């Protein structure tokens, strides 16, 4: 009896020791892991942190005391200056004027074509689909000059219309690709049921398919908003007037205008990112989902 009891005790003890050891080890491991993670993350965010810090200071302060000094005082002057004097306000408005219609246009058009490609068998289905997929990978550069010419011929060069058009058109490929793959997963019985009840094809699309694909629409919309809002290249090629520039091109101008006033430039840059950052904060799930869907699987 005693031997058995002893034996059990020793196993128990050994187990406890093991547990303790592994616990200590795992805590140690956790500490290492978190220290590493926090370190890397801070390093990663350092550029952004530096930007925020700079924007609340003055250039004199930085020049005299150096970058890593404790700021003499925090000021939001640079933000107001960037907002009013450096015209960030107008650039942001321009960006919205371009982005919102382009977004609405591309979502509507691409969901139509995605619906056709996903739910109907017809001649050329696959070919059209691949045209879209190929188009979404095209480098912008191959389109720039002809589109420049086209915009000139249509007399929409140097208007927001030209940018809205090209963004809508170019992003059709990506949106169609993602939405089509999503729409294929919707069970056909729902659509058939509606069809049997005498629902027209367009109504099926509008009242059944679109609501069902809202999650993927949201994902695409979030991502596309960021892309179109962040576009710089097309604005350079299709707009010549300063007044019409979107925020990205506006920032580039800002750098030329105030090239030594880094607090102002960084303040402008921060203001410029606010819309996308807000979007990212609130719709992060959709943003990530969009990126994942867009990669093909």
């Amino acid at each position, binding site marked *: 009896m005693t031997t058995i009891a002893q034996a059990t005790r020793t196993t128990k003890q050994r187990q406890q020791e093991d547990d303790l050891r592994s616990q200590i080890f795992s805590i140690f491991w956790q500490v290492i892991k978190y220290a590493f993670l926090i370190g890397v*993350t801070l390093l*990663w*965010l350092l*550029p*952004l942190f*530096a930007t925020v810090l*700079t924007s609340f200071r003055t250039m004199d302060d930085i020049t005299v005391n*150096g*970058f*890593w000094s404790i700021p003499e005082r925090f000021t939001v002057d640079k933000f107001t200056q960037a907002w009013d004097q450096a015209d960030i306000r107008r650039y942001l408005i321009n960006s919205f004027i371009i982005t919102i219609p382009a977004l609405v246009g591309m979502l509507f058009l691409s969901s*139509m*074509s995605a619906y*056709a*490609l996903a739910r*109907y068998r*017809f001649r050329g*289905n696959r070919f*059209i689909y*691949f*045209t879209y*997929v*190929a*188009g979404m*990978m*095209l*480098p*912008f*550069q*191959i389109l*720039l*000059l*002809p589109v*420049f010419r086209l915009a*000139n011929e249509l007399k929409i*060069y140097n208007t927001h219309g030209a940018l809205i058009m*090209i963004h809508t*058109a170019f992003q059709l*490929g990506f949106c*169609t690709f993602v939405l089509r793959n999503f729409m294929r997963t919707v069970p056909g019985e729902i659509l058939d049921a509606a069809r049997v009840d005498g629902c027209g*094809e367009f109504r099926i699309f509008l009242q059944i398919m679109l609501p069902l694909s809202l999650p993927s629409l949201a994902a695409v919309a979030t991502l596309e908003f*960021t892309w179109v809002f*962040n*576009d*710089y290249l097309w604005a*350079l090629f299709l707009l010549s007037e300063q007044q019409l520039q979107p925020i990205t091109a506006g*920032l*580039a101008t800002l*750098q030329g205008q105030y090239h030594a006033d*880094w607090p102002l*430039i*960084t303040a402008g840059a921060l203001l410029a990112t606010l819309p996308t950052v807000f*979007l990212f904060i609130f719709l*992060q799930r959709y*943003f*990530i989902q969009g*990126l*994942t869907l867009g*990669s*093909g*699987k």
Partner: protein
Amino acid sequence: MDFDILLYWGVTWVIVGAFVTPFLFHQKGRDPWNGALAGAALGALGGIILLAVLWYFVPFRQKSCPVCAGTVRAVDPVCQHCGYELAPSFVARPVSVGGQYSREPLDFFNANFLALVLCTVTLIAFLYSPWFFDDNATYNGGNLLVQAVFKDSFLADFAPDTLLLIPLSLLICGGLSIWGLVSPSRSGLASVLTSVVALGGLYYFIDFFYISKGSNYQFPQWYDLAKDDPGRGFNITMVTMAALALHSLVVVGPALRRWMARSQRGARLRRNMVPYLFLLLPLAIYLVWIIAPTGYTFYLSLTRWAGANESPSYIGFDHYEHLFGNRVFREALGNNVRWLIIFITVPTTLGLAMALIFNTEIRGGRWFKVSFYSPLVLSGPVIALVWLWLYHPDKGLLNSLLDGLGVININDNPPGWHSDSDVAIYCIIAAAAWRQVGYVMVLYLAGLKNIDPAMIDAGLVDGANRVQLFRHIIFPLLAPVTTIIVVISIIDSLRAFDLVQIMTQGNNGTEVLANLMYQKFKDYEMGYAASVAVVLFSISIVFIGTYLWRTLKDELEY
């Protein structure tokens, strides 16, 4: 009363309205409003008479029912008494009942009536409202019409022959719509014909805005002025003319729908047409703005083209010959290759490592992840500015940090980073990679999530350690994701532009193809720029092809 008489009466009225009044009022000074008032009064009078005539004298068009001998109205070929439906091809002819024509009020809410109203409005606007201004006076369409015929004053410049198309098409439209109005069985045809004829009138505007621009004829200076600020009459005419051209859709749409619902061929056509109808608009836009331009760039690269106001002239392969001998081009190509090599190695590895870490259970892992994603939402210019400030030689973060660590002295010839041509390109690539890591991580995380846990468990049961697990199970399973990431990285690195343009404008040995193209564009060497674009495209087509092939394979397995 015969219908044809009514028809001719209507047409005559329109002819009088269109041609005689402006000639009458042409002599009486230049104030268009005199003419406008007179014309409006005349038009109203004519219209009232016309409507009165139509209302009282159009006979009730009906037929007797073959079953019960009751009367059947032409507009609704179903017998009121017995419900017998007559053949749709039922052509109504006025019949006399009891020696007298019965009357039926005309249907004024149809397309022909709409067209007639539009015709009248257009005619009045065209003839009597201001078409152009100059400093001295305003000129209405009537004035110009006279000039289009006689060409006897300086105004003739404003009155090309195409101007005659407007009254001419209006005449025909008016006649056609009256015809449609009085013979309901032909109203659809009349409406469609009206639309087609109205297109003829629109040709004037197309010619005015687009075609005449290309001719060598020197217009007087104020022609352009007029073009920028056309008068009310011009605008109204343009809009109503377009409405006239489109109005038959009111008829065509329902008619088409009825036909499709009835006939078997219609039903089949309808079924087959649906996807194409959905695709029509998006695909048209896609073709015009994306596919066609892609091809057109190839042509442009064989031309000399000095900007929007010139037209490209064919010169053959000169640009390409010049390109490959050019030092800047070789530099750009080299930099793109550097960019590409770094992009498919560094951010990919880092992103994979981060994804592997974050794939395990980590408290607050979401926040760590967010901080790695965050550069993804920043635009190119913002990233460029942030990193420019980071690299600033005297005051930037990087040199301050190194100075603090005692590695360099910030006051004594500090490293120039982006302004040092030895490392500048790597500095820019670093900034780009900073954003790319988050992207790669997102994709790998999604890939890891898709891996069947049973596979990992199987590996663990077989006693694999972490490294073996990764080497032999996880990594092979991630292969499709890796392919996609590599392709995307390559394409991204080929089209890199924003950072270079803002950070160095391609100076300090950082030229890349995309930026070279932009420089050439700015120098009005469009053809040359196109050839750069073609080279860039040719390189990336290989990888686009890889990607497409993958998608195609997935598709065929699906």
